[in-house]
Structure formats: structure tokens, C-alpha cells
């Protein structure tokens, strides 16, 4: 094909055709443009610039996409911020223990019948755990079983299962200051939520106590309100 093209280019016929086309194209370029048409080539625009409006800007897909992205980012920040507002020393461990509460079966625990408040002696004598005391608010609850285990940070956790609303209690070391090693204290009861479970946490003598049950926060409130009275 290249040979054919090359042959054609060299031929008189092709040269004449090229001259013909060039001459016609030159004639076309010489077509005069009337003044009325030339007006269109001036600085005048085809369209008058329309007014900038918020409505138009908001409808623009690029602006819309950026807006949605900013809203999502802001949402994530707000969510994290609100989550942090309820944080307290030991809240991370408390949430992990709520996950454990959700997956614990009663057969895993040693059967123990008695008042929850009496288990402090058991934890101290059998496991050497000091101040693992059940607060007075929950001390009278009948226990079904209990156990002591180590979590993934080698902290020793006491877990108690009580008959009342199949509630579970957890006792675990309070979070400590990284520099001084002193237990980080907080006053009163704090709530944590995880996977449909709610926990009420308090700290005493460097040990945190958490009462946990499956359900909303209001199910736990009456027990704590009673304690206040």
C-alpha cells in the first residue's frame, strides 16, 4: 500500500490534484467575511455572562460532591467528638468487657450462689485481688457464677453473673497514669455502650466496677438511682 501511495505521489495526476485542491482551498480562504458576521468574532461573547447565584453553584455536580464529602467528614469528626465527650479513664477496657459480656455463656463461670457483695473475700483469698469490691448498690444481688481471667493486656478481670435481669458485673484495674503510675480517678457512675449492651462504671480504690446488661441505659438507671437515695 505504501508503494502504491508513493507511486501515486510521484505521478503527474496526483501533483495536479494537489495543485487543484490547494488552489480551491486558497479561494475558499479568500471568501470575504461580512461586517455583520465579523461582529461575532469581536470581544462580544456568544452568551452574556449570567449572574452567579448560590442556587446555580449548589447544583453544580463538582460543588455538590465536595459539599457531600465535607458533610461526611464533619459528621465523622462530630461522631468522634461526641464519643470522646463520654470517655473516662478505663472506658476502653469497659467497652471490651461489654463485648465479652455479650459472648459469655454461664457454663464458662464457676457456679457460686450468694450475695455479690460477699465475693470480695473470695477474690482476695483465692486470687489475691485487693479492693475487688462490689459497690453497695449491687452487693445484695444473688450470684449465679463468677470467674477471674486475664484480658489481652494481662489485666486480671473478675466477672460475676447475677440472677437479676441476667446482669453481669466486672471488676478490673483502673487506668493508670503512664508517668506516675497512679490510678486515674473519676467520680460517680459513667455509662458505656457497646453492641446493644450498656454498662455503668464507677471507680474506687484503683479498681473499676461495671454493671452490664443487654438493653438501653434506662434499664440500668433505677439501680443507680436507688443507690443515690
Amino acid at each position: 500500500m505504501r508503494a502504491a501511495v508513493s507511486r501515486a505521489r510521484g505521478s503527474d495526476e496526483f501533483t495536479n490534484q494537489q495543485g487543484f485542491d490547494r488552489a480551491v482551498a486558497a479561494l475558499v480562504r479568500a471568501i470575504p467575511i461580512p461586517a455583520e458576521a465579523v461582529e461575532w468574532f469581536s470581544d462580544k461573547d456568544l452568551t452574556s455572562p449570567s449572574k452567579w447565584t448560590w442556587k446555580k453553584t449548589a447544583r453544580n455536580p463538582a460543588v455538590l460532591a465536595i459539599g457531600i464529602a465535607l458533610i461526611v467528614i464533619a459528621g465523622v469528626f462530630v461522631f468522634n467528638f461526641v464519643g470522646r465527650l463520654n470517655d473516662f479513664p478505663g472506658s476502653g477496657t469497659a467497652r471490651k468487657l461489654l463485648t465479652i459480656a455479650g459472648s459469655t455463656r454461664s457454663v464458662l463461670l464457676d457456679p457460686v450462689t450468694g450475695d455479690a457483695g460477699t465475693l470480695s473475700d473470695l477474690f482476695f483469698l483465692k486470687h489475691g485481688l485487693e479492693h475487688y469490691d462490689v459497690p453497695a448498690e449491687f452487693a445484695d444481688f444473688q450470684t449465679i457464677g463468677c470467674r477471674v481471667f486475664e484480658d489481652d493486656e494481662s489485666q486480671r478481670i473478675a466477672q460475676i453473673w447475677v440472677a437479676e435481669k441476667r446482669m453481669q458485673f466486672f471488676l478490673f484495674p483502673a487506668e493508670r497514669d503512664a508517668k506516675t503510675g497512679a490510678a486515674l480517678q473519676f467520680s460517680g457512675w459513667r455509662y458505656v455502650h457497646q453492641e446493644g449492651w450498656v454498662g455503668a462504671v464507677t471507680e474506687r480504690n484503683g479498681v473499676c466496677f461495671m454493671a452490664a446488661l443487654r438493653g438501653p441505659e434506662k434499664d440500668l438507671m433505677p439501680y443507680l438511682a436507688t443507690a443515690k437515695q
Partner: protein
Amino acid sequence: MGGKEATTGLGNTLVDEIEARNVWGFQISVSAPKQNLAQLYRFCFLMLGDSGKAQEVFQRTLHEAARRAAREGLPNERFWLFRDARWRCLEASETDLQAEPLEIEEQEITAGTASQIERLEPIQLAIWISAAPEPQRTALAFFYLDEFDHREIADLAELKLSELSRLLAVGRRQFQAWLGATFPERPPV
């Protein structure tokens, strides 16, 4: 037609420039390049063979472009201005007197043709092209505009490449025959 390769982009530029106004939804002031609007007018002139009609179609095309740009935005299609202008030209010439289909004489192109063409006025060429039957008329107008490559012309004129090539070849020979009859070659001195 050495400029063909280099000028294929010019047709795009016009459309792109106008589209650029709507890129971010803001109507940005951009003047369309003179070269391309001039070519658009020349196309109308070649298609209609009449300056007044060409101007009318040219202005209607640009008014429509301005209207669309302001309302729904310009179509995302290459060379749509030329396409639009072509349909307007076809529409405008529908109302004109139609030439009877004749067996037009053909003649091989000779070496002296270029000098014969130089003696022509643009209006004579435009009248000859505008009298050609469709789609030959469109093919010739686009081709001698020296603005588009063959594929683009085929697309604009809705032709196959082979068909376009044949129409151009026939057009050249017919024009040569007409030239020969109208401006006989001067005898060599």
C-alpha cells in the same frame, strides 16, 4: 491540502471554547476564536452560494448556540456547531429552486488548473459547490474548508470514507470540466 493534519483541531477548538464556559456551571466569558467562526461562515457561504443567506444561517446558528449555552448548556458533541449549521443550510436550500439532476461532464485535472482557479471569484466557487447534489455539496464544502480531516468530514456529512473519497474525486473532475468550459486555458505563448 497540507494543512489538513494541522487544522483538524481547529474545529474542536470552537466547540471546546464554547463548552468551556459551562465547565463549572459558571458562564465564563470566553470569545470564540475568530478563525473558526470565520470558517463556519465560509461553510455556510459554500453551502448556499449566497452571502445574505449564508449570513442568516450563520447568525441563526450562533444565536441558537448562545440560547442553548444560557439555558441547558451546549451539547457534548464535537463539531456540533458545524453540524447544526449544515442542517440549517439544507433546510434553507430546500425552499430554493432545485437544479434538475443532469449528467455533468467530467474532465481529468490538468497542470494549468491552478491558474484557472486563481482567476475565479469566491462567489463563483460557492455557486458551483452549492449547486452540487447532496451529499456531494456537503463533502466538497467541508473538504475545501481545510478545517477537518477525512474521518471528521465523513462523520459530519454522514458518509463512509470510500463514499467521501469517490464524491470528492468526481467533484474535482466535474469542476475541472466546468472550469474548462468557462475559462478555457490560455494557449501557451
